């Protein structure tokens, strides 16, 4: 069937309409609101006063908040790095399994999604607390030690890595699964030992999966507040906790919005940077 381009245009509009409306209503509108609030002031009761001020953005550069930003960045980096180191071999291994077993392993990766994320995080409290499962096991050992992990930065990292590991594994898996094995064979045929074959053939060909995985882990980790709240107590607030606080406890919506906007801009920049690199390589 040969459709005129204008007719095709209308068809695309028609089928794309629900998604467009959804996006406009729940993504564009809240973001516009956020951007608007971030330039406003608030009154003593926490009501947003429509006016224009840069004050909220100036406050972001207060050392207190800068430190939180830096700490969040560090936590996100560590989480992403560990997820990559653990997730890449796992994803590659699963992708190379025979087809029947592969789906089983993939299921094992995805099973955590079947339980509420909050319940799983509470489960970590049971595991990590002083009289919890981990210490019970450690105490039963001959050299009987104990670890006080709960409400430490370490606990936060464990929780973050646990939560976001599947988001690293899945995109890398989908990339590694499509990897043409004859390319790996060609590399080895042309004299590349397993290490150089990995560096020169496998890694570049699975790079899109790695990039997606990094984005999927880094971005939500940066803004995460629930895991930090539950496993870190109030010892190590990250930027997500600060934003949550501004909206719920401090009732300073404009400042919370400004922090949110800064975070958004950072992610866009990060995406543009990784995207640019891809274009340059071509």
């Amino acid at each position, binding site marked *: 069937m040969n459709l005129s381009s204008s007719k095709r245009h209308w068809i695309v509009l028609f089928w794309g309409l629900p998604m467009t409306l959804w996006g406009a209503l729940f993504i564009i509108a809240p973001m516009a609101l956020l951007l608007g609030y971030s330039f406003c002031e608030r009154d003593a009761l926490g009501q947003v006063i429509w006016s224009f001020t840069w004050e909220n953005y100036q406050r972001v550069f207060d050392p207190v908040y800068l430190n939180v930003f830096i700490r969040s960045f560090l936590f996100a980096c560590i989480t992403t790095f560990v997820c990559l180191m653990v997730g890449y071999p796992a994803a590659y291994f699963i992708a190379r399994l025979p087809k029947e077993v592969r789906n089983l392993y993939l299921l094992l990766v995805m099973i955590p999604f079947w339980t509420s994320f909050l319940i799983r995080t509470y489960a970590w409290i049971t595991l990590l607390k002083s009289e919890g499962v981990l210490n019970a096991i450690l105490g039963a050992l001959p050299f009987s030690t104990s670890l006080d992990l709960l409400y430490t930065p370490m606990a936060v990292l464990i929780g973050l890595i646990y939560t976001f590991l599947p988001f690293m594994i899945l995109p890398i898996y989908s990339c590694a699964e499509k990897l043409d094995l*004859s390319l790996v064979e*060609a590399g080895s045929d042309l004299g590349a030992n397993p290490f150089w074959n990995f560096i020169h053939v496998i890694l570049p*060909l699975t790079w899109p999966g790695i990039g997606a995985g990094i984005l999927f882990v880094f971005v939500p980790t940066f803004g995460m507040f629930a895991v930090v709240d539950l496993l870190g107590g109030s010892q190590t607030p990250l930027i997500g906790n600060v934003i949550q606080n501004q909206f719920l406890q401090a009732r300073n919506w404009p400042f919370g919005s400004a922090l949110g906007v800064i975070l958004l801009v950072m992610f866009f920049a990060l995406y543009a940077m990784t995207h640019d690199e891809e274009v340059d390589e071509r």
Partner: protein
Amino acid sequence: MNGDPKEKYEMKKSDPMVRIQDLQKSFGDFTALHPLTLDIFAGEFLTFLGPSGCGKTTLLRMISGFEEPTGGTIYLDGVDVTSFPPHRRDVNQVFQSYALFPHLNVQENIEFGLKMKKISKSESKSRVEQAIQLIQLQGMERRKTTELSGGQKQRVAMARAIVCRPKVLLLDEPLSALDAQLRHQMQVELKRIQSQLGITFVFVTHDQEEALAMSDRILVMNRGSVEQIGTSFEIYHQPATPFVASFIGSSNRMAVIEMRSDEGKLKVRVDSGRWISLGKREEPKSGAKFILSVRPEGIEVVGEESKEESIEESIEGRVIQILFRGDQSHLFVRDLLGVEWRIAQSARQRPYRVGELIRFTITPLAAILIEERNKGG
């Protein structure tokens, strides 16, 4: 079973480039390759020919090192390489899917092997230039491999393998993805490249026409065993087994049920009951079962004018179908006993029509007796 290799290999027979000894491979209960012993000589163009699943690719992959043999030894230029991983073997492969690296451009693809072998920059540069010239890829160096046509990809894959100067170049059905015209062109090109470089080529294909056209020697395989090894001429004109006769070209095949020798002239009775004289030749040892095989071009249509001389030996039949092939036509003729014959007719002969009654004779020298064996190998 071993056909005499061409004279040019006689001298090199003492030290083959590849010596395969009792090589075998099974996957669980399935035997992909029965014990095989084979010498591949330096500079030779050897083809593994057979239907899919005959073990030819498995054999090739054992030489390249991607498949581990269940038993036996592979010597490459006198060195036992059986336990060597692929990257330590001095052989290169042209893959069926070409396997060009999509993240590298044409030049980077060709350089890959030299980079891995830590060849110096200047040496590498001149070798790549040479290969690009030989394979006629000038001006394509910066192209992405995904932008190339099938024939161009084929050339890049060739160039990438030959810059490494392998002792043996292994080609796994490299032409199967190309269309007919390009395939014929690449056949000629491959022969040219091989004779120019003098590298030993081991070529895998299921296309008998391709094998006959290009090879110095052909190894015909079926169900994991060798059926015959010999030159194209031998494989075509002296098939050693019924399988070779049926797989290579087309042939009329009949089971022989009786033989009689008359003053040195051999006559055989085939399953349709007809007696066919095969001219002066020795009667083969009895006790074995034989098949009579005649190529379509070994049968001659007798013109009306020569009726009287050869009428005694000739067979009468009706043309039921004609396949026009340009340089010749194949007539399908059903004789009075109901047996179907395939007869080649050169383009210069008078064209026949379907339904026409014709007489034909079998050229005695073109009829071959093939001993039927119970199992292959």
